[in-house]
């Protein structure tokens, strides 16, 4: 009975459903986007290596990073020997790469770009999982002798050289001429591989007149022994430094921080979409109220023939729920479908919880927003309803 009267007003029923369709669709789409992004970033971060421990200068609390708090960064106090110490004194650590950082201007012919220069040791490819697109890495002796060789990030190479082959070309870094020996592979978001360049750390410290190492990257032999390795690093560094001079970060910590930020993002996207779902619900209420008024005579007749107030109420409630659940199902299919198509271009991930949430919310909306019109119908006085024209 309820479905029949919806069929009688096909266009109106569809337009009413549209509100819920769009609401459910956007909940599913936006959360799919959020979850997809999260999965993608996590995967990219894992690429860097789950058995990497990064030793940063100063004290920083990653847990408070999400809430916007980031504690003091003191000037770095590491020296090259620390890297060597960690490598030789801990049985858990396979290799350590010290890093120095500086900002610089990179010039090739009339092309010019500002970039971050990363000074690393020759074993960085082994520790930091940075494959080359072309060319080769520098060697330990290149580093020791402070040779002016440079490995470009993929974006930098593109900016400076365009389609030209960069290997063996000369670029100028802060008035010094460097030979390009390699180009890093583009790996997406993993720590900005694209827009920085790598040079031997000795060369960098010499060029920028630095005597301190900014951070240390330690590769742990077995990823099950991260905690033991962390403890070892702490113990060894405390021989020379204090607690406040350094912070250990593992990929797990980093993932946790990024995840918590993205969780908030996904929730916010879902919340925005939920508002449109609410608007859809109000649309249903509106149309049901119109429908009750329009069908005053019908309601009066049904009551005269023996329909109790409850029966009338249930009939109108069913109509509202059919509208909202119908809209919910169409929205689910559309949202899921579009998310799958979008997957070809950007990462999306349709999660079960978002689908079930959107669906149950649409059902609840039908009930909540259907109750008021349904009660209005149920309370109608049969005499006045029969007389109504």
């Amino acid at each position, binding site marked *: 009975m309820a479905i029949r009267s919806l069929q009688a007003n096909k266009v109106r029923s569809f337009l009413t459903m549209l509100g819920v369709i769009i609401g459910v669709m956007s909940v599913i789409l936006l959360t799919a986007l959020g979850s997809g992004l999260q999965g993608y970033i996590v995967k990219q971060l894992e690429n860097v290596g789950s058995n990497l421990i990064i030793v940063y200068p100063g004290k920083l609390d990653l847990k408070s990073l999400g809430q916007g708090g980031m504690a003091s960064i003191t000037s770095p106090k590491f020296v090259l020997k620390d890297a060597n110490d960690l490598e030789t004194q801990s049985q858990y650590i396979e290799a350590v790469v010290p890093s120095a950082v500086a900002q610089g201007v990179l010039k090739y012919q009339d092309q010019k770009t500002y970039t971050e220069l990363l000074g690393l040791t020759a074993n960085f490819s082994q520790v930091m999982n940075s494959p080359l697109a072309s060319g080769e890495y520098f060697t330990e002796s290149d580093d020791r002798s402070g040779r002016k060789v440079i490995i470009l990030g993929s974006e930098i190479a593109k900016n400076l050289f365009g389609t030209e082959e960069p290997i063996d070309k000369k670029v100028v870094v802060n008035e010094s001429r460097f030979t390009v020996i390699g180009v890093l592979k583009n790996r997406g978001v993993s720590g900005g591989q694209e827009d920085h360049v790598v040079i031997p750390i000795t060369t960098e410290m010499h060029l920028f007149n630095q005597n301190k190492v900014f951070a240390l990257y330690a590769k742990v032999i077995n990823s099950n022994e991260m905690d033991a390795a962390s403890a070892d690093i702490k113990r060894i560094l405390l021989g020379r430094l204090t607690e406040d001079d350094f912070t250990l970060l593992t990929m797990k910590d980093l993932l946790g921080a990024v995840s918590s930020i993205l969780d908030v993002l996904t929730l916010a996207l879902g919340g925005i979409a939920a508002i449109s779902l609410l608007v859809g619900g109000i649309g249903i209420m509106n149309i049901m109220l119109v429908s009750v008024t329009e069908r005053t005579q019908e309601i009066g007749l049904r*009551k005269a023939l*023996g329909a109790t107030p409850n*029966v009338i109420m249930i009939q109108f409630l069913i109509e509202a729920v059919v509208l909202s659940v119908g809209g919910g199902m169409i929205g689910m299919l559309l949202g899921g479908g579009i998310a799958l198509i979008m997957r070809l271009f950007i990462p999306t991930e349709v999660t079960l919880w978002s689908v079930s949430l959107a669906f149950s919310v649409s059902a609840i909306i039908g009930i909540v927003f259907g109750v008021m019109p349904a009660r209005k119908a149920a309370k109608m006085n049969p005499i006045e309803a029969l007389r109504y024209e």
Partner: protein
Amino acid sequence: MILQLKHVSKTYFLEGVEIKALDDVSVDVKEGDFLAIVGPSGSGKSTLMHLIGLLDTPTSGEVFLEGKDVTKMSETTLSKLRNEHIGFVFQQFNLLPRLSALENVELPMIYRGMKSEERHKKAKEMLDMVGLGERLNNRPNQLSGGQQQRVAIARSLVLNPLIILADEPTGNLDTKTGKEILEFLHKLNKEGHTIILVTHDSYVAEQANRHIHIRDGKVVSS
């Protein structure tokens, strides 16, 4: 005595003004009666019909259905009593336009909670009886006025009620068709149905055996 109204009054307030639609009216309806309630518009006959049809309750006085006082019953109980005991025939026919003749006749049985097979069977029988056995699946707008009123009569009869309450049943029909409907009601009365006819038309009222004339909310003769 199947229906008794004892000293019922009904008062409305219209924009603060008290309107006495019925003033101390008593009516008895016996089984097999063909009763006409006659009066001009505004006389209070519609209000009386609403009380008889259990669509409304009086301001004072009592209404007894088969000896039971229904004056203070809840709306839900009244709905069930109407379903069981009263068959309505309206001036406007009041068929649901989206339903076929058969489905319209099934309506009261739905509210009774009968199974669909039984409903189909009974509704078909009733439409056969009113001479519309060939038009079961027609919608109201595909039927003439007289045919629509016969569907409404079939609907009123389908649960075999105590009383058939017809409110100006010929008001929207031409004279010839109106006559046919009245003859049909006559026939039903002969078969034992109790019929109450509400009308302002004295010709229509002549068909009945008993008459209650009502004017200004009071019974002037019966």
